[in-house]
């Protein structure tokens, strides 16, 4: 599902509209520039880069991304790098990862990598952030922190989130609309309470209820 939205897999049928534009034919990186940013269920950090570099590589259209500009106007690059660095520091502060900023990202714990994935989405002007099981493999304390960050970003920074999650507490806390899917189809859509109490959801996830014989 996320692979379709983010453009990693091509759509076999149908169209994908975003902000009243048809983005079906766009590739992953083009969709990023439209404001669709994703994270991965199993974190995909850039393991040989430091944590701060992981964040600094994200902003689009940096001056130093062009070979010629690096050679001809190194000063412009340096100024732009300084801004990017500042921004990355703010994000690390926000995520409370400052103490590991110069570690190789590959050496972080699973939970820290999840935070780093969230951090990458904050380095750009995202409109829609796709979070793929942010709670998977994250310990409880860190999870609460993650929830706070997500709801802060949603309320204060105006990000829209789509969350794939199995952790019911997290869904209850964060989600306004819940869509329950099974076998590639939408079972039910609504707020958390309706979805949770719906018998079809229980059936899909726990199996058919045994008929009680009188």
């Amino acid at each position, binding site marked *: 599902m996320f692979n379709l939205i*983010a453009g*990693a897999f091509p759509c076999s049928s149908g169209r994908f509209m975003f902000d009243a534009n048809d983005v079906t034919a766009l*590739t*992953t*990186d083009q969709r*990023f*520039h439209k404001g669709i*940013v*994703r994270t*991965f269920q199993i974190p*995909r*950090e*850039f*393991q*040989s*880069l*430091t944590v*701060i*570099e*992981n964040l*600094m*590589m*994200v902003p*689009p259209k*940096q*001056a*130093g*991304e*062009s*070979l010629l500009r*690096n*050679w001809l106007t*190194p*000063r412009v*690059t*340096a*100024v*732009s*790098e*300084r801004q*990017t*660095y500042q921004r990355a520091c703010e994000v690390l502060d926000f995520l409370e990862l400052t103490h590991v900023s*110069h570690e*190789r990202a590959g050496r972080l714990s699973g939970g820290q990598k999840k935070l780093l994935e969230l951090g*990458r989405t904050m380095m*750009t002007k995202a409109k829609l952030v796709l979070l793929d099981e942010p709670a998977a493999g994250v310990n409880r304390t860190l999870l609460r922190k993650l929830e706070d960050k997500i709801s802060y970003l949603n309320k204060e920074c105006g990000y829209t989130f789509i969350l794939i999650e199995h952790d019911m507490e997290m869904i209850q806390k964060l989600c306004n609309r819940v869509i329950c899917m099974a076998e590639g189809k939408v079972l039910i859509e609504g707020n958390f309470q309706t979805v949770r109490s719906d018998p079809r959801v229980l059936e899909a996830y726990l199996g058919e209820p045994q008929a009680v014989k009188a």
Partner: protein
Amino acid sequence: MDIISAFNYPVYLAIFICIYGCLAIGLNVQWGFAGLFNAGIAGFFAVGAYTTSILTSSDLPDRLGGFDLPVPVGILGAMILSGIVAWPVGKICLRFRGDYLAIVTIGFAEVVRLVVRSEHWLTGSTSGISNVPRPFGNLPYTQAQIAYLALTGGILFVAYLLIECQSVSPWGRIMRAIRDNEGAAAAMGKNIPFRRLQAFILGATLMGLGGALYAHLNRGVTPDAIDPMIASFLIWIMVILGGSGNNRGVLLGVMIVWIIWSASELMTDQLPTEIALQAKYGRIFLIGLMLQIVLRFRPEGLLPEPLSELRIRENKDSPPRDTVS
């Protein structure tokens, strides 16, 4: 005069180190930064060597070229043409990843080698192109060698600085990110095919440069020069042994491997003829053994890739450069 001529061998060695340094830095851009497994270095080396030979040699009746152009034009032309050749090759080959890319690039290098061997009107086939001018060629031998060393050393130094500048820049960061995880880099809005192609072409340009310097050194080029054993695989060993991803490490690798390779040739030449032939294979064995030892005990190479020092971090402690000036 005898004292000066004692320098002949080290100078000759150093010239080759500079030439292979260009090839190795080119490979480092492709493999060390962008993770492109290019095993067809010899192909770009040949394109560079033949381009400059055709551009700068004097006229011959049955062959294209002999334009008699100045050497710098030839070298520049070699770099540009290598880049131009790398474009379609990269467009097609870079759809492959890892080992498959290695296979198709070996294929490319073999195609180039066969074309060079058989197209007499273009490359003079097996006899190659001779009368290529050599910079400082009018000086006595030793002085000419030293002057040529200064030239290649200077060119290598400039190439090193230019590539090192990219290595610590956001461009280098993107390349390393793509190497680490392509999917995630695409999800962060980076155009992967374009970036891979960029690294491939930049690397190929440097390989063409190496080829051009080689042709001018030898006043010509023959198909024997495009031996994949030396022009492709020896370069790979240099890069891996020195430390891929680190330009200084790569140059160290070039020095070590080339000195062993070259000095062992001196030694095998002293042996009686019947053993000398076998000893030649012993040299290859020696290099292979060294690669094994490095891979076993230091898989990241002698000088591994450093954590990128952020230019910003340097600036942060000292006042920003703009206010100083």
